[in-house]
């Protein structure tokens, strides 16, 4: 939410809005954690002869995770730029 807009709210509403944003961020982080495990497990773990991960499977899961986080961070920057561009243009006739 636009920080300028957030700060213009009365104190009570600002507190409520901030709490709403924090709840949403926490929930999104927890979902991302579960999605990341599912995704990297699917790519990296394909044999089930033993009940512990092999060393190469552990390494794969780690690298998968690192790579996804770097990818997500990069998209995050692009997303903010694209958002800013759209704000400057007049919105298409809806």
């Amino acid at each position: 939410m636009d920080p300028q807009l957030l700060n213009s709210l009365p104190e009570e509403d600002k507190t409520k809005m901030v709490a709403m944003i924090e709840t949403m961020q926490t929930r999104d982080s927890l979902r991302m954690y579960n999605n990341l495990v599912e995704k990297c497990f699917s790519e990296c773990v394909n044999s089930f002869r033993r009940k512990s991960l092999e060393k190469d499977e552990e390494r794969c899961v780690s690298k998968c995770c690192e790579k996804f986080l770097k990818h997500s961070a990069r998209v995050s920057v692009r997303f903010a730029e694209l958002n800013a561009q759209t704000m400057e243009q007049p919105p298409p006739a809806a």
Partner: protein
Amino acid sequence: MTDQGGGGGQNNMQTMTPEQREQAFAMANQEMEYRVDLFNKLVHSCYEKCIDKRFKDGDLNVGETACVDRCSSKYWQSVGIVGQLLGANQQQQQQP
């Protein structure tokens, strides 16, 4: 369906009734959820299109970063195209 900064109503929260206030919060909540969902699907889509899944190391190479940048831009354009079509579709359905 496009992203808008706050309209007049959102700045005048002091003058709203409790029901209008509740509705304004509900709308802000839905808009935030929409944007979070959009971002997550953008990340997922460009991960599938651009990222090498062999995970030889944890960094993105030059080809991957260029792909991710262009993919994000193309995805954003697609959001616009689909948004316009959905808007036109809604108007069609509301005509008597």
